[in-house]
């Protein structure tokens, strides 16, 4: 009896979900390395200070709203309310794309201030952090789009347990890049 209980316990989490969680650990290590290097180099001096363009604060609101819509979409899916699912997921995808556009606008804003990638260590690190995050976001957008296309296809096989698992994985990943952005924003804010 005890052994059977133990068996159920170790199988509680789906292997793919577990794999996603540990791959997040790996991404956390990547960003820890970047931000540690940032702190060390800043302490070494020769550091140009510049304020964060306002677009980055707008984009923060957008990515938070995006996470919220994706979560509502997922809940609608679980409740088999497919119309709402399609609606919320579409809004979520739109907000995700808007986030990337705003990040890019923020960068152009910095260019107007004559701040480029090679201007100073501080701007190089800035591009490195925001760029690496944007790449992770683009990976997430690819996953969002896949689900979006499947959701609107005729004769879709989307409404299955497998579909639900994919949505759960996608949402988890998206919330992760969301929190990662909050961390980076806070980091850059406090380093100012």
């Amino acid at each position: 009896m005890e052994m059977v209980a133990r068996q159920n316990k170790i199988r509680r989490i789906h292997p793919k979900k577990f794999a996603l969680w540990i791959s997040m650990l790996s991404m956390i290590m990547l960003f820890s390395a970047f931000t540690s290097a940032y702190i060390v180099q800043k302490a070494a001096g020769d550091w140009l200070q510049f304020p964060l363009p306002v677009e980055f604060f707008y984009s923060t609101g957008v990515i938070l709203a995006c996470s919220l819509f994706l979560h509502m979409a997922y809940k609608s899916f679980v409740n088999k309310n497919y119309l709402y699912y399609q609606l919320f997921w579409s809004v979520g995808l739109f907000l995700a794309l808007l986030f990337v556009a705003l990040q890019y606008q923020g960068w152009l804003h910095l260019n107007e201030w004559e701040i480029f990638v090679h201007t100073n260590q501080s701007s190089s690190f800035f591009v490195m952090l925001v760029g690496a995050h944007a790449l992770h976001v683009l990976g997430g957008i690819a996953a969002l789009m896949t689900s979006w296309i499947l959701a609107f296809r005729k004769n879709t096989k989307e409404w299955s347990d497998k579909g639900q698992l994919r949505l759960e994985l996608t949402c988890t990943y998206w919330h992760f890049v969301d929190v990662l952005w909050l961390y980076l924003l806070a980091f850059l804010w406090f380093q100012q």
Partner: protein
Amino acid sequence: MADINVLEKEAHLSDHGDHHDDHHGDKYQSSFVDRYVFSQDHKTIAKQFLITGMMWAVIGSAMSIIFRIQLGYPDADISWLQPLLGGWIQIDPLTGVGKLDPQFYYALVTMHGTILVFFVLTAGLSGTFSNLLIPLQCGARDMASPMLNMLSYWFFFLAGAVLFISLFLNTGPFSGGWTGYPPLSGLPQASDGSKAGATLWILSLVFFVVSVLLGGINYITTVINMRTKGMHMFRLPLTIWAFLVTAILGLLSFPVLASGFFMLTFDRVLGTSFFLNEIFVAGEALTTRVGGSAILYQHLFWFLGHPEVYIIILPAMGLVSEVLSVHSRKPIFGYKAMVFSILAIGVLSFLVWAHHMYMTGMNPFIANIFILFTLIIAVPSAVKVFNWIATIWGGNIRINSASLFSIGFVSMFISGGLTGIFLGNAAIDIQQHDTYFVVAHFHIVMGVAAFFGMFAGIYHWFPRLYGRFMNETLGKIHFWGTIVGAYAIFGPMHYLGMAGVPRRYYSFAGFDSFSEFASMNEFITIAAIVTFAFQILFVVNFFYSMYKGKKQTEMNPWKATSLEWTAPVDCGHGNWEGEIPQVHRWPYDFGRHGRDFIPQTEPLAEGEVDGGH
């Protein structure tokens, strides 16, 4: 009672349910491409890793022979190598004497390091055996995601292809050392090897990092989530513990290396100065490239670099533990101590990276902390060594290629580990830094020792891979040739190092103080060539045995207890026909209750206590 039945049924269903999505029996691998090229069967992927690794081992070792010829016979005419190396052999138009291009010497050293550390001893060792043994010894039909597993191999293949292409560049492959320190690697104009060669080297290693991460995610998930019924963590063979911790180390440290590579690429391509400051190239100051720090790269590099040596040696330790126990017909001595040693080594490996950087001008008080942790690693390492010796002590040892290589591993690990205690101390390292003493140390402790673990694994699990045995006589000749040869190569290097002979020098012609070592260098070169010949013997034995070796007639030829020997000899994708076997005991029940061995699948008798507890 009814409840128990329901629970058991559920457990049984989930047992297969988890795996079912990805397996559809043999129908799934119907075509040649699915079966042999883009295979998702972990056993085939293991073979792909092994054979690709062997190919790279031959290339990487052959490179070392070429630069050993330069070191042993600096005045010799090597124009006979021109058909192979082309323009990298410079022929003096007056005398007709052919010489190795110094630039290419550095490229060879760099490629030798990169290939052996990453492609052979990481991918070839952990890639092969994690893939082969994790599902089979844990009792799973395949990895958690066979698809990602396949991608892991093909990213490794891609990494290899890119590096291979770089060997044929007009400006030569990367030549800044396997560590790729900036500014040499950060500025394309720094040297010929820093041009396209460095770009391809970075690209290759980024692909390699992807491969390691995809593999590692799978290994960890499979070990944690997909063990068969009854296989709780303390019933896992030590191989699996070693692969698990190896994968965790890789997962946490390779992204840090990737971060260093991204910044290096920014420096090379976008004109940033992460790692560059106050640099002169060809007498000209690079006035716009200021503010960075080359030492920062070293920190990022060694934060991977040190765990990397444990990524290499832990799988070898796991394989050796298993092989020694099976072939001594004794339980592994101190199973739990072994497990906790692996875990301790894993944790400590993240706290010692700066012992590679004592000479960077770091604060000596900070160096003390790294000395302390470095020396503490000797404790779990010594626990393991004592346990291996205690395992074979009084055992009924079968002397065969696998057990000989395992014992050889212990010998190498002790010899190389002892010099590690010297080098771990900053006070001694300041003297020995960048000399042949360091070369001798790391080659013995993580190069040769890891190879010995790998050979032990190949000889032992060859039947599991190919259903045949390797030739024992050739195997034993291979062992004796290799152990004597390896000590003959690296033993004398300790003396060179203590005399101050620096590593990475093309020639010592300009240094009178080192001229007395010419004959010793010649001896080392001869030993290297002879040892290399013994490895070719192994390759011949490997491929010959694959087709003509003695056939495996019984399912469990070594009379081992673990699960991989309960699957049929020619099992297809999915490993077991019918249900996955259940596990009832730890994997080291040898010589218990007067029986030679008791398989893990045999239920505990009434009142019997599991051996692992």
